[in-house]
């Protein structure tokens, strides 16, 4: 992560270097989590957060008297037609209006600190506690392969606008949430060019087993997986023994990769020789699992993680180094608490009995325990 440039500090209410992103209320869940990962020593792509304060300032400029927001609040939750109309109007305003100069310059200097017009990912980072609300933002809230200060500003506005997509507005109306409390942070990070990317869980998403790390991955950008464009390879590795207990290699038909210089993402057919080849070696699987375990230990709870595996370390060594180890090539794009299994309360598997042998007596006393 790059050090914060001097220019950013003065305007830190609008833009924060990732390493300084702490509060979800300011940096959004994604931004705060990336900040925490960075501080914990996990490699994340360099970047900065456009804070919730920037959104608030931006919206104040667009809707100084609050009329727009009042209009949203007045729509009945069941009136889908009106929601669509009002939401479209909001999106148009948010996308079209210029940013307040202080916000724009904070973003511009944050971007400048990332290098000479690099390609970046612009990702919305919800500040709402309720993660299911955030999930309504869907896939539109991440933009890959954006380059140049102007396009970055545009895409920050687009992320903001995603708060006004029909489903999100309908959801807020159903819950009767106040529009004035609404805010969103946006994460801007240098693009990575991964050899493979995907998601991993520090427990089995299928069975909830906490003794394994389950990894899904595909060639190129993880967006192919998130968008459902490919069936990913999947691997299960034991945290305790390090054994890879399951591997399912799929025919991965497409590769997403970003086209440099702000031309977005290309989708191409996977070369024949790569289609059915596993996208990870055993060493890479183990390296990912090790990072996953470290992150889980850091948070003290099972995690749902987005990862990418680069061809080279993200921060190139000062001196020419031998072949980089898999561990040096792992970067994380997100980590959040696993929610599905955490919400379930499983009954205890067994309780102790007066004598150990009572367990066996119980087993053989059960009907159909033996054909």
């Amino acid at each position, binding site marked *: 992560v790059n050090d914060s440039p001097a220019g950013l500090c003065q305007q830190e209410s609008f833009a924060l270097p990732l390493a300084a992103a702490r509060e979800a209320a300011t940096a959004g869940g994604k931004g705060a989590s990336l900040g925490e990962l960075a501080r914990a020593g996990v490699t994340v792509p360099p970047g900065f957060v456009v804070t919730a304060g920037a959104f608030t300032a931006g919206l104040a400029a667009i809707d100084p008297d609050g009329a727009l927001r009042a209009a949203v609040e007045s729509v009945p939750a069941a009136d889908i037609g009106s929601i669509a109309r009002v939401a479209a109007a909001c999106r148009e305003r948010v996308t079209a209006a210029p940013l307040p100069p202080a916000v724009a310059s904070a973003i511009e200097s944050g971007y400048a600190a990332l290098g000479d017009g690099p390609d970046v990912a612009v990702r919305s980072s919800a500040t709402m506690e309720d993660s299911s609300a955030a999930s309504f933002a869907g896939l539109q809230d991440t933009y890959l392969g954006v380059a140049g200060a102007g396009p970055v500003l545009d895409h920050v506005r687009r992320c903001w606008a995603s708060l006004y997509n029909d489903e999100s507005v309908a959801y807020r109306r159903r819950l009767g949430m106040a529009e004035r409390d609404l805010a969103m942070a946006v994460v801007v990070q240098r693009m990575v060019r991964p050899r493979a990317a995907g998601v991993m869980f520090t427990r089995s998403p299928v069975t909830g087993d906490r003794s394994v790390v389950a990894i899904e991955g595909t060639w190129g950008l993880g967006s192919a997986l998130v968008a459902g464009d490919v069936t990913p390879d999947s691997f299960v590795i034991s945290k305790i023994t390090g054994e890879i207990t399951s591997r399912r290699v799929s025919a991965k038909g497409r590769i997403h990769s970003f086209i440099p210089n702000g031309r977005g993402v290309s989708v191409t057919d996977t070369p024949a020789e790569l289609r059915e080849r596993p996208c990870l070696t055993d060493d890479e699987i183990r390296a990912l699992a090790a990072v996953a375990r470290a992150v889980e230990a850091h948070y003290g709870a099972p995690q749902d993680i987005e990862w990418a595996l680069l061809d080279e370390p993200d921060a190139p060594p000062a001196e020419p180094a031998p072949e980089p180890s898999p561990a040096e090539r792992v970067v994380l794009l997100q980590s959040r608490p696993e929610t599905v299994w955490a919400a379930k309360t499983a009954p205890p598997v067994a309780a102790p009995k007066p004598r150990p*042998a009572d367990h*066996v007596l119980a087993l053989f006393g059960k009907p159909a325990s033996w054909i």
Partner: protein
Amino acid sequence: MEQEGFPLPSQIADVPGAENWRSMYQYFTRFAPDDDKRFWFYNSMHFPEPMPAFDTVTAEIPYSAIGANTARLFVFPTTLGIEHRIVNGRVYITANPVLDPAEIGRRAEVFGPRAGYYFENWDSLYEGWKERMRGLIAEIEAITVPELPEWEDDSVVFEARGVAQNHYLRENFARCLALYSKMWHHHTEMLMLGYGAYVVFFQFCMQAFPEISDQTVARMVAGIDVIMYRPDDELRALARLAVDLGVDDLFTEGCVAADVLDALAARGAAGQQWLDAFAKARDPWFHVSTGDGFYHHHLSWNDDLTVPFTALPGYVAAVRAGTMRVRPTDQLREERERIASGYRELLTTDDEKAAFDQMLGLCRLVFPFVEDHKFYCEHWFTTRFFQKIKEFGALLARQGVLAEAGDVFHLHHTEVDQALSDVSLAWAAGTPPLGGAHFPPIIAERKRMLKVLRDWSPPPALGPVPEALNDPAVRMLWGVTQERIESWLHPSTEEMRGVAASAGVVEGVARVLQDVNEIGEIREGEILVCPVTAPSWAPVFGKIKAAVSDIGGAMSHAAIVAREYGMPAVVGTGDATKRIRTGDRIRVDGDRGTVRVL
């Protein structure tokens, strides 16, 4: 659409050319019409080949003993015994459940105190068990096969014994069978309870950690100082001794046991010292069988020294090069503790941790028996048993009833008894026995039929598919699970499925060995493909890079040794030795339990 399912027992046609197979087996092993209503599976684990007539004793007696133990002795609440049937020479089995809740309850009341008594006194009972087993072994070793002299010895008269040698033909033969039966009763005496402890722990782990592999559960339980490793350890020690004594030059690749032993005898004191150590190691450790003790032709190292003398040159070379691998027992022990405490830590409640401790503790209490009984029963005793039966065969051959000693194994034990009656009568009457005209054509026909039956592919199961079969015991003993039944119904054409016995994926060249006596053929870095491995195969594990077997589960010998060597293994594939040829490039996936020819 064809209806899904397995053929019914009554639908199995006789194998052409072996229509007369029933003549080899007893009437009580034949499928009856009512058997069509039940689910049977082929016990390929214990009986991978067509049964020679005598060898059916290895089904008849064990199933008598197991059933007695579960149904009548401990009174297991939910199970009676296992039934077996033979069709086209193959052994099919089914377990007989108790389904009536009232009956289960009635049995449970008896079972609780009885099983509890064994668990509570396990260690001292196991000590007594070993004593009794050594006693049985001493008894079978002491049995003599009568010589049938022209005239009885003076002592029979002057000591007024009054009983002639022909009497002892049948008495001593019956004694062999009686001892074999007792051995099997003791074999099952503690085994079912021992497996029960394992199944309980296994089920717990599967529920708490649904993704845990069978092999990982096994690793938490497995003993470190297991006598199964002893024969191989003895061999390594003999290799070291050969180097120390300076007689190691005799152990060259391809050396022949008899020649080496002769040469050692000519090497003075050093040679003699090695021979003494060798003789000491042979009894009992070389009684280890090359199979699992269910066929007479699974010879022991003592019966055929090829296996140890194939391994010795490699071990000698390793000693010289200073690369002799010693089982890292401390490291294995540490690893076992690390894994167990790793899983324990992941349990969320103290109650679960306490239950885990109880179950694992019980497993480790019973496991020395579970792991070591095989050496006493299937190896040491059974080797002695088959040797003794072969001595009776030699007597019958001398009497002209059989063409050669080994032919005795083509007669059912009741037929051997008949032949001994014949010999007894003939010797008493002073005439040749009549069996010489009776048995040889029967035996020739049986040998021919067995060859024909060998090519039959037995269906993995017969009868209606059971609705539910998630039984952990059947899974552990025979690897029969719902998924396995599914793969039997829909066999993959390219991929062989088995039990993922040891993790890892490798590709390499296959070496298919039908018999352990062929282990001399294996080359460094090949993948071993074999019907079944027993402790006597251990020496080859230093050479190979993966192992595949037709038969076996996660606790089978091949699985355990492969895990120790850290090489991938898939066991219980059913027919890998038929589908793979030596020289094929294959991929062994020890994580998923699959083998593929590339």
